């Protein structure tokens, strides 16, 4: 003890730390990793914002020119109206969420409140596999199975339904189902068990407990799930593009072909020259898409804050 005290004791406290300790390498590495992540995000945002305004800056089009429903990038009179794409994106994702949200919330309720353990053990991995299926596969399935099915089997209803808004929304709704389900499920599981037993002990039915305790308590989480589903759907390009028909006009009917921001960008980006107006308008559309998802992210943050206060 005494030896240690003489060797490294009080005097040891004043020895300068080794070079390695002064550099503090691990801390720097993780800091660098975090910093580069943030930097990449900001550089990307800056680049897309910069490219997104080139149509107005470089090519001299007035900002108002994109607020039009006419899309004619090659044939005179040239018009870069992007409203059909914005409306298409909103329309196709909106209907997809309308289809998917009730199913997802129902599935989450089943998993969280009703399912016996074995059923949960089956459904949860199934959902994870669901997430893992690449979007091109969904699109292909939509193209080869769903669209022909709709076309041949729904004729009796008095309209033809092939490549269409409805087909796009249906494919999207399946793709976002696991997203909404898992996040809603987590929100339900986060509701303290005490509240459930407290409610049941007052002589309420399981459904009353779900309706009056569980759903309100998980409200913020459920809305977050829906908004995340919306953003996932709005950002999805490939699968939608394969079944939606890609007609650059304002969406008029669920049975008609339409287009979205993402599908138009992927269709046109190979056929245009960097810097040309018809290329720059695609960047503008990308910027609009980015703005939509940023609004969604802000919305989620706000929801979670207000949800946590309660």
């Amino acid at each position: 003890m005494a030896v240690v005290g003489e060797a490294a004791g009080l005097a040891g406290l004043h020895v300068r730390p080794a070079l390695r300790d002064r550099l503090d390498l691990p801390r720097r590495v993780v800091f660098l990793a975090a910093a580069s992540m943030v930097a990449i995000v900001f550089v990307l945002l800056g680049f897309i914002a910069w490219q997104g305004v080139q149509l107005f800056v470089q090519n001299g089009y007035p900002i108002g020119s994109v607020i039009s429903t006419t899309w004619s990038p090659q044939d005179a009179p040239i018009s870069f109206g992007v409203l059909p794409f914005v409306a298409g994106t909103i329309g196709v994702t909106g209907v997809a969420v309308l289809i998917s949200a009730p199913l997802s919330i129902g599935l989450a309720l089943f998993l969280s409140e009703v399912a016996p353990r074995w059923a949960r053990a089956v459904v949860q991995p199934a959902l994870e596999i669901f997430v893992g299926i690449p979007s091109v596969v969904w699109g292909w399935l939509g193209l080869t199975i769903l669209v022909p099915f709709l076309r041949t089997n729904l004729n009796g209803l008095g309209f033809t339904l092939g490549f269409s808004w409805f087909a796009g929304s249906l494919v999207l709704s399946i793709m976002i189902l696991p997203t909404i389900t898992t996040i809603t499920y987590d929100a339900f599981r986060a509701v303290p068990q005490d509240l459930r037993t407290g409610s049941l002990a007052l002589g309420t039915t399981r459904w009353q407990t779900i309706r009056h305790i569980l759903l309100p308590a998980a409200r913020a989480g459920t809305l977050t799930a829906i908004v995340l589903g919306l953003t996932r759907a709005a950002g999805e390009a490939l699968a939608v593009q394969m079944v939606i028909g890609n007609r650059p006009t304002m969406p008029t009917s669920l049975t008609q072909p339409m287009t979205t921001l993402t599908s138009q960008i992927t269709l046109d980006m190979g056929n245009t020259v960097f810097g040309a107006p018809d290329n720059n308008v695609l960047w503008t559309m990308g910027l609009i898409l980015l703005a939509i998802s940023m609004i969604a992210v802000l919305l989620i943050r706000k929801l979670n804050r207000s949800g946590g206060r309660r």
Partner: protein
Amino acid sequence: MNTGDEMTTTTRAQDPIEASIDPSPATLPPRIVPVGPGRTADDARTGSPDVAGVAAMPKVAAEAVSITYGTKLAVRDVSLEVPERSILALIGPSGSGKSTFLRCFNRMNDLIPGARVTGQVRLDGIGLMDPDVSVVELRRRVGMVFQRPNPFPMSIYDNVAYGPRRRGASDRAQLDELVERSLTRAALWTEVKDDLRRKSGLALSGGQQQRLCIARVLATEPEVILMDEPASALDPISTLRVEELMRELRELYTIIIVTHNMQQAARVSDRTAFFNMGEDRAGYLVELDDTRTLFTNPKNQLTEDYVSGRFG
């Protein structure tokens, strides 16, 4: 015992508040009714036959109740009776099955996967284990207060009105009255009456939250209240308030309380049941008696050791 007793019993069921305002001693039955294991044949035969039937009928009874979780026996063969408007305390060391046993009376064990209850539990003589018993209706008549206060994340008013509303009560004036009455009876009204609708139940202190939970139970107008260590998560002052409250509630309700705190059992209860964990790690009833007798002059050596603090 006379017909007056019978009448009070029915009046109470219809209008409990009347009884609380005017608890004329003559109209209330004696607090400590000697039934249960200590009951003798003579007690059962007291009075005229018809009145004796009413007086001797225990409010709640357990008959040879055993509870298993999966393959583990948690409670073995417990029989006891609780007379109306009395407090029975269940005491005993951890693992002696008190809480598990308590949950038979409102069938909360149904919610636990793998739990199985055998034997019979009776409320007013009606078998609660029978398949045609409505668990929802049962839980309205047998309320429960939990160890940890669990107010709902909603306003104080909505917390108290929760049970009645689920039963379809929507008349504003009636609900207002019921909420006030329940909160008053739970000794919380004066503290919260100014922001009933604005303040969340979660914004109250722990002791207030527990009284809110009691008010919430009272609002469903139960006959029996089960309390599972209702004061164990509270500070001493709040504990005292909850104990005072229990003594007041005894005028109107039949109460069964699980407690780790022997002083608490001694302070609030009329009768006390001592549970212990057997060699097979299953809980069983060792002794049940008037609280004073059980604490001062227990018949069983185990009880003696426990109440004098030698184990547990």
